[in-house]
C-alpha cells in the first residue's frame, strides 16, 4: 500500500504539486490523469525518488521513504523516453537491475529469459536497443523494470510515443500483464482513453492537486466538475432555471420553460450553481416525438462532422443554444432518405436516466 500525505513540491514560486493526499492499494492499476503541467509527472518522480518533496511524506507499506534514495527503493520506473542503455544489448538491459543487486548469474539467466518470453521478445536478447522498433523498445523497458519484481511499477506516459494501432494493442497487453504479475501499477497519462481502458481507479489532476478520484465509469458518467467532464470526453451543458425533487428523481425547468426529467437521486443545491450535463453519445436525433421514457427538445441540424464510424451533429435547440449529438453511421452516408441532413428539423432525445448535475 502506497500513501501520499500532504505532498508538496515547489519550483520557486510555482507549486507543481500542493498538499496531495492519495492512497493506492496493493495490486491496483492506478492511473493519474491530467493535462500537461498538472503535476502528475512531478508526483511520479517523487515516488521514484528523483525529486524530494518540499513537504509531506510518502509511505510504502507503512514505512517512510523520506531518507531512502532512488536506488534503494523497491520501485521501478518505465520511462516515457524508454531510457534504454544504448551500449548494452536487450539481455544486458533487462539484467541491469539484477546485476546491481548481485543476483547469482544462473538466476539472472533464468529470470531474464522468462521476462523476454513474457513480453514476447525471445530471440531478441542479443540485439542493441537502437535496432528495435518503438514497440519493441517499449517492451524491453517494461521487462527491464518488471524483472526486478518491484513492489510498485511507475509508468510515465509509456505509450505516448507509439502510433495509434500499437498503442491500442499495448493498452490491452499492459492491462493483461498487470493482472498476471500482480504488481501495483501507477500509470500517468494525459490520454483519457488509456486511463479508461486500463485503470482500476483513476485520479484526475489539475493544478497540482487531485480533483476527482474513482472508478473509470464513475469519473466518466459522474464528473464532479466541468473540468473533469470536458477533459474526459465531451459533454453538453445546459443552464437550469428551477429544480424540483420528485419520487423518481428531479424535474428540471430550463430557462426557456421546457421541463426535463433526471431519474437520479441528486443532493439538493441552488439551481443557479448547477449545470445539467450530458454526453454526445447519450443523445439521439429523431424525426418522431420522444418516447415516454425520454426527454426531448426540438432543434435543427446546423452541421455534421464526419468521423467515419460515427458523426457528430451540431444541433441548434429552440433556445438558441447548441448541443453535439453523436450518431453511429449505421447507414452509409450519401443519398439515403433516412440520413439526417443539415438544416433538418428534428428532436434531440435522451433517456431520463442519462446525464448528471454538476457545479457551475
Amino acid at each position, binding site marked *: 500500500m502506497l500513501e501520499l500525505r500532504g505532498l508538496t513540491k515547489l519550483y520557486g514560486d510555482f507549486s507543481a504539486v500542493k498538499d496531495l493526499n492519495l492512497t493506492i492499494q496493493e495490486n491496483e492499476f492506478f492511473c493519474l490523469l491530467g493535462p500537461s503541467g498538472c503535476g502528475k509527472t512531478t508526483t511520479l518522480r517523487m515516488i521514484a525518488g528523483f525529486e524530494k518533496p518540499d513537504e509531506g511524506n510518502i509511505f510504502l507499506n507503512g514505512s517512510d521513504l523520506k531518507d531512502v534514495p532512488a536506488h534503494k527503493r523497491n520501485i*521501478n520506473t518505465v*520511462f516515457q523516453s524508454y531510457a534504454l*542503455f544504448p551500449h548494452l544489448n536487450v539481455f544486458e538491459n533487462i539484467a*541491469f537491475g539484477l546485476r*546491481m543487486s548481485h543476483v547469482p548469474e544462473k538466476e539472472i539467466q533464468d529470470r531474464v529469459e522468462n521476462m523476454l518470453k513474457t513480453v514476447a521478445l525471445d530471440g531478441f536478447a542479443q540485439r542493441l536497443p537502437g535496432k528495435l522498433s518503438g514497440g519493441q523498445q517499449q517492451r524491453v523497458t517494461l521487462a*527491464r523494470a518488471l524483472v526486478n519484481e518491484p513492489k510498485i511499477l511507475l509508468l510515465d506516459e509509456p505509450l505516448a510515443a507509439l502510433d495509434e494501432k500499437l498503442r491500442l494493442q499495448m493498452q490491452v497487453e499492459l492491462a493483461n500483464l498487470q493482472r498476471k504479475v500482480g504488481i501495483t501499477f501507477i500509470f500517468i497519462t494525459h490520454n483519457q482513453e488509456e486511463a479508461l481502458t486500463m485503470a482500476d481507479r483513476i485520479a484526475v489532476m489539475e493544478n497540482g492537486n487531485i480533483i476527482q478520484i474513482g472508478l473509470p465509469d464513475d469519473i466518466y458518467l459522474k464528473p464532479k466538475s466541468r473540468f473533469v467532464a470536458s477533459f474526459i470526453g465531451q459533454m453538453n451543458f445546459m443552464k437550469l432555471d428551477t429544480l424540483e425533487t420528485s419520487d423518481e428523481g428531479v424535474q428540471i425547468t430550463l430557462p426557456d420553460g421546457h421541463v426535463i426529467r433526471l431519474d437520479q437521486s441528486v443532493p439538493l443545491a441552488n439551481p443557479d450553481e448547477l449545470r445539467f450535463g450530458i454526453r454526445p453519445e447519450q443523445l439521439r436525433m429523431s424525426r418522431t416525438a420522444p418516447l415516454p421514457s425520454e426527454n426531448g427538445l426540438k432543434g435543427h441540424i446546423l452541421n455534421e462532422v464526419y468521423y467515419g464510424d460515427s458523426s457528430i451533429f451540431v444541433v441548434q435547440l429552440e433556445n438558441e443554444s447548441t448541443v453535439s449529438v453523436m450518431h453511429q453511421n449505421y447507414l452509409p452516408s450519401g443519398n439515403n432518405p433516412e440520413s439526417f441532413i443539415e438544416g433538418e428539423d428534428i428532436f434531440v432525445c435522451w433517456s431520463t436516466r442519462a446525464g448528471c448535475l454538476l457545479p457551475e
Partner: protein
Amino acid sequence: MAGTDHQNDLAFGRGSWVRGITWTGLIFLYFPIIVLIIYSFNDSRFTSHWGGFSLRWYEIMWKDTALWSAIRNTLIIAVANTVLSTFLGTLAALALSRYRYRFSGLYHKTLHMPIIIPDIVQAVSLLMLFVFFNFTLGLFSIILAHASFSISFVALVVMARLAGFDHRLEEAAMDLGANRWQVFLKVILPNIFPGILAGALLAFTLSIDDFVITFFTSGVGSTTLPLKIYSMIKFGITPEINAISTMLVLFSIIAVSGIHLFERKT
C-alpha cells in the same frame, strides 16, 4: 539517418568545375608526400636528382642510434602525456558539463585558451615558469608542457560527447538500483568512452607532432623526433629524412586504419 544519404537528381557537385577543384586540392595535399616517399628509395646522396632504386637510407636509418633515442623519447613523452591529459581532461569535462557553480563559465572559457594562444607564447611562458622554479628541463618538463595544452583538447572532445549523453539514463540506472559510482562505471563511462578514446588519440598525436613548445622546454638528452629531424636538416637534407618520414606516414596509416576498425566494431 534515412534521409541524409538520399541522392536527388539535381546534379549538385557533378559539374566539371567541381571535379577540377577537387582534384587540384587532392594533388596539392598528397603530391608532396608521394614525391617524398618515392625519393626515400633514391640511391643518390642528394634529394635533387634520382640515382636509382635503393633501400640504403632505410638501412642507415635503422642503424642511427641517435635517431632511435629520439623516437624513444618521443614515445615516452607521448604515452605519459596521453595518460595524464586524458585522465585530467575527462575529469574536467565531467565537472564542467555536469555541474553549475561559481566561475564555471569562466573555467569553461579558459579551456579554449591553450587552443587560441599561439604556440610560441605558450612555449616562452612555460620556459619562464620552469626557469623561475628552477625546474630541470628534460623529459618531465616536456610532458608537463604537452599536458598543459592536451588537457584542453581532451576536455573539449569529451564534453562534446557528454553533450549528446541522455541524462535520463542516469535516472534509469539509479531506478534499477545503481549507486552513483555504479552509474558512472556502468552507464556514463561506456557511453562517453569513444569521446575519451578520441581525446586520447588527439593528445597522443599532438604530443608526437609538437615542435615549438617541445623546443623551448627540452633539455640535454631529451631530444624528440621533430627536434632531431630539424637538427638533421641543418646539416643538409639527405634521403634518410625521407625514409624516416615515410615510416611515420606508414605508422599513421596503420594507426588510423586500426581506429576505423575499432569504431566499426563498437
